[in-house]
């Protein structure tokens, strides 16, 4: 992987949210560790300093973008059906 900021943002997003997830009875459940969850959010925010976002601005923007993508996902489903 290219070790640049863009690549790292993309990597963090994948490593935290994707990949094989094992059943909870086999693994330590990370969601039970609030400190970890909070710090990971900060990790994401920190790699975005290159964008000169404040943390709150970032969260607001993320919410907006997520909504936009949801809209597209719906339109994409329609495309597939067509």
């Amino acid at each position: 992987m290219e070790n640049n900021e863009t690549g790292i943002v993309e990597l963090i997003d994948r490593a935290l949210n994707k990949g094989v997830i094992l059943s909870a009875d086999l693994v330590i459940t990370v969601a039970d560790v609030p400190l970890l969850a909070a710090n990971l959010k900060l990790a994401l925010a920190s790699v975005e300093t290159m964008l000169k976002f404040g943390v709150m601005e970032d969260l607001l923007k993320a919410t907006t973008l997520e909504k936009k993508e949801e809209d597209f996902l719906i339109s994409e489903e329609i495309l597939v059906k067509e």
Partner: protein
Amino acid sequence: MFNNAFYVYGVVKFGVNLELNEEGLTGKDVYLINNGKFSALVHDCEETPYTDKDPEKIKELIIAHNKILDRAMEDFDGVIPLSFNTIIKKGKSSARFNLKKWLSDDKEKLENVWNRVKGKREYGIRVYYEKDKLFQEASANKEIKKIEASIEDKTRGLSYLLQGNVKSKKQEVFQNKVNELKKEFYEKIKGAVEEIVINPSRISLEEEKDSLLSLSVLVEEKKVYQIKEILEKSKEKGFSFHLAGPFAPYSFVENGK
């Protein structure tokens, strides 16, 4: 003595136990634990998730996780990545027993996933467009121009109503154009890759521009040039993009599909 737990990076189709001679998270020695056709890339650890108060340290941990997956992709022609911080614990049985049982119980799922991702890499593509430019283009629509022209000789009340019509028409034309561009771009990329997933965008990488699309694609390394060609051509139409990767195929292994 039984290990307390195993941090698991990923799984490869390789039927023997092996030292990887690579340092994983916090310098731990990474090795393979085999059961049948598949081996898990692991290091010994405690039953405690990896974290740190310093976000930079967490970033380093994630990069270390990925380094092992990169190495596996090179050495074993593929890897099934697990999410960061996957730690197999002991229960009534040892952690080793639990790990091997998982490899055995899920061997069919793993086989399906392996066949899907073997020899392939994941790339992230984010496409952006210039909102103002596109809105201006949409505003040049003939129908809109016609309504605008008709406003001039109307009474104040009617003019107000028509201006409202113009505004909503502009928005409609603009949105249709955006959807058309998304479809066009998606179809072009889809034709050049093995698989494609639309990502919900959590992060914008260019605040001055609007995100059109965020994709994860699964592609053979030798075909990446085709994606690059499509992206280069798209620049001529006013798009910009980020191409990130190669990554382990995180987006194509969920739920053992």
